[in-house]
């Protein structure tokens, strides 16, 4: 299972506690993970990626295995540790404010 962590406000919106566990058939990429996440929780559509372009919203980042994957291509395979469920795929809200 793929483990996905969400910022607090998106967990509230999706009505989930803790991590989201997703089963993905086929290549495990950022695109396939986010597609599966939005299919499971349609209220998240548009809150992580733009509805039309599917581009990451500017103040969100995607982390995994201590790496920032935000600028990786969406169809690049995710690290084995994410595929195996050893590490979570993290959707993170950027720090803002002062």
């Amino acid at each position, binding site marked *: 299972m793929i483990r996905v962590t969400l*910022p607090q*406000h998106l967990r509230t*919106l999706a009505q989930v506690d803790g991590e989201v566990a997703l089963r993905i058939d086929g290549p495990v990429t950022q695109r396939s993970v986010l597609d599966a996440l939005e299919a499971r929780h349609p*209220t998240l*559509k548009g*809150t992580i990626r733009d*509805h039309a372009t599917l581009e990451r*919203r500017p103040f969100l980042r995607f982390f995994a295995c201590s790496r920032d994957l935000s600028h990786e291509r969406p169809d690049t395979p995710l690290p084995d540790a994410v595929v195996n469920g050893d590490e979570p795929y993290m959707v993170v809200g*950027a720090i*803002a404010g002062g």
Partner: protein
Amino acid sequence: MGRVRVLVGTRKGAFVLTADGKRTKWQISGPHFGGWEIYHVKGSPVDPNRVYASQSSGWFGQVVQRSNDGGQSWEAVDNTFAYDGTPGTHQWYDGTQHPWEFKRVWHFEPSPTDPDTVYAGVEDAGLFRSTDGGKSWRELPGLREAKGHLWQPGAGGMCLHTIILDKLDPGRVSVAISAAGVFQTADGGQSWRPANRGLKSTTELPDATADVGFCVHRIAMHPSRPKVLFMQKHWDVMRSDDGGASWTEVSGNLPTDFGFPIDVHAHEPETIYVVPIKSDSEHYPPDAKLRVYRSRTGGNEWEALTTGLPQQDCYVNVLRDAMAVDALDPCGVYFGTSGGQVYASADSGDRWTAIAQNLPGVMSVEVQTLS
């Protein structure tokens, strides 16, 4: 006697304030959607349990919430606001043309006849309609053909913030956009025309009487008189007696005619309310005194309403969607401030009480009168 439910949108969530018809003891529930900016919350006139809320965030974008039980529980509905076709461009700050980009919903206007029909005014300025209770949205793109290429965002964004529906003539809709002006349709949204004749902006526009470009802050209409419209413009309080075909200034003896909200008494169509603000660069009341001004003559002659409102050291603002009236008798008047206070008057504005004092900055106030 009836009851009232006050729907308050703030910078950090929505709150629901309820009271019986005396309007002296209030209960506050919330925050709903804590931490999110709630630009507007409004209920259906035909089904008070149906309430729509605009929830937005710089991180997560736009969410639309719907309640079927008067705001006790909520469900997220469709948040897809896709401009129709190729959206085209509008004026940008540097004089170039800039593509339309959806940012947020500023205002929901539920239909006066159908609880599943609701209009959404959005930034960048556009008008959307849902006929299935918010489960899907379609733009009325003809609006942007009303010289949209000349529209230009003001400092607050190019938002469509006011939607006036006419129960007696469903095909007739008026909208107001910052900083473009008033636009009207008589055919249900197919075709639109600017309705800004008589407006003047001598310091903000190179052509003070242009067709478009006016920073209209709010329009109000009494439902029994759809031909009479009242406007708080960036500067100037205006009225129209021909349904928006022309406007005349009625600022009269106001201490300043800058402000944001304007509203009409529920039972006296010539009684109107504004909250004068010192200037466009000083968004606080003149003389540090929070005063609502009431005109019982449809403008020009204004009286200050001060009882119960802070009359010293007050530096709050009142935003365009943050004033409303109830339909009880005497009419109740409500407004919220950038300092998180919600003030209410149960006697048409003569005396005021803070019914909430420490909320986040208030962005919108709407009132439902319940049986």
